[in-house]
């Protein structure tokens, strides 16, 4: 396994998964990268997220 992926899994507290289901960790890391790469992130720095950050009358 790529040591970076193993390090990220440990940082996420997934030591048990890493020990018992290492293939799931590799699969998950690849999936995460694939999903994120499919997104065209906005180029406008002022583009806000949805759902909107709403300041109600009382916080």
């Amino acid at each position, binding site marked *: 396994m790529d040591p970076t992926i193993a390090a990220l899994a440990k940082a*996420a*507290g*997934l030591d*048990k998964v890493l020990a018992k289901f290492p293939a*799931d960790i590799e699969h998950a890391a690849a999936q*995460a990268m694939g999903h*994120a790469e499919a997104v065209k992130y*906005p180029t406008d720095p002022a*583009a806000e*997220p949805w759902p909107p950050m709403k300041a109600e009358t009382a916080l």
Partner: protein
Amino acid sequence: MTELHWLSATEIAKAYAERTLSPTELVRALLDRIERLQPRLHAFIRLDAEGAMEAAKAAEAELANGHVRGPLHGVPVGIKDIIDVAGLPTTGHSKILVGNIATKDAVVVSKLRASGAIVMGKLSTHEFAIGGPSFDLPFPPARNPWNPRHHPGGSSSGSGSGLASGMFPLALGTDTGGSVRNPASVCGIVGLKPTYGLVSRRGVFPLAFTLDHVGPMTRTVADNALLLDVLAGHDPLDPGSAASNARHFGALLDRGVSGLRIGFVRHFHEIDMPAHPDVTAALEDAERILQAEGAIVDTVTLPKLSEFAGINRVILCSEAWSIHAPWLRERPEDYGALARRRLLPGAFMTAGDYVGAQRRRAELIAAVNDKLRDYDVLMCASSMDPASEIEDAAETARTYPRQARAPFNVTGHPALAMMSGLSHNGLPVSVQFVGRYFEDATVLRVAAAYEKAAGWHKKRPPI
């Protein structure tokens, strides 16, 4: 008279009013049918026969005294097993929550009880509405009544299977990436993902907060509108609930589609994700039927399906990870393999991925709203394929993501999937209609006109 198990909620209410049917007679007939079909279809995780008969007797007494609570009084309903029903387990079809007895009804269940509906029990789902169909869970997966060798779709699998097989006329499902509309598509029923915020999710086990919806599932469009009438309404304790005045969802059902403008998003199934020929042919038929009914249908273009899907997955995985991380860290072996694999990617998403996806989401919403300024409703594919064989894991993995439902979880627009034909091997195929925010009634109007003209709702599975 139609066999009791195929009666719609509308027909049941009429029969009660005419005193030709009683709630106990109906519930008894449905329990007999469930007893016969459950071993083959596994639609239920927990059947509450005793509770259903008690509720039927109570409804019968009220109706006999002339106390009619509304059109769902005495009508049976099945509840997906991530939605709390007080006194029954909410397991999420998972070992993680076996023995988790709900102490309160979810808001949607409270509303159903207040309307006099009869809760029949808890229905199969993909594990936590994401991992399935799976054979390594405490309960078997539901199967498709049109052919039990096939998947009934998911994650609201038991809702689709039970409706299509005549176990109950109404069901609740949930939809985060298409989970009401997938079983509707492959079981030949009607499933609506309402506008985001229209139906409370309080008391429903979450999958992804900004994508989750509770939706009505039925065999007819009119029943879907009736069920939505009961479910909809502002819930100040659900942070995603909208203070909308949308009501009377069946008000437009008889208006037809003459003069309505429908935008047909062909590139979803023709270019982005080429559909099975049987699905494509049924969509072309649906277009012709709607045109013959007087609708104006034009081809329209939206952003690519792959981008909607990517955004749905980044958001879903990130939000679901924040919910499941403690159990994934401590009890990974208690998840089925599919749920574990589908939930773990969230651990590898960055904060930038998540916020970036939510920012791009706003642009995609604007793109869909832009089209809905020119068109009353959009029309597109739902599933790109008929149901796979449930034990063919490779085929299920190939076909499951081939869908055009996730875009409308990303945008929050109301979206309905319904039967549009049968494949060459006798399995349902489907069409999807999408409307403006809180114009769920217009989506139901188009669906009703199509249903009446096409007549697919009269087909029954050979079970």
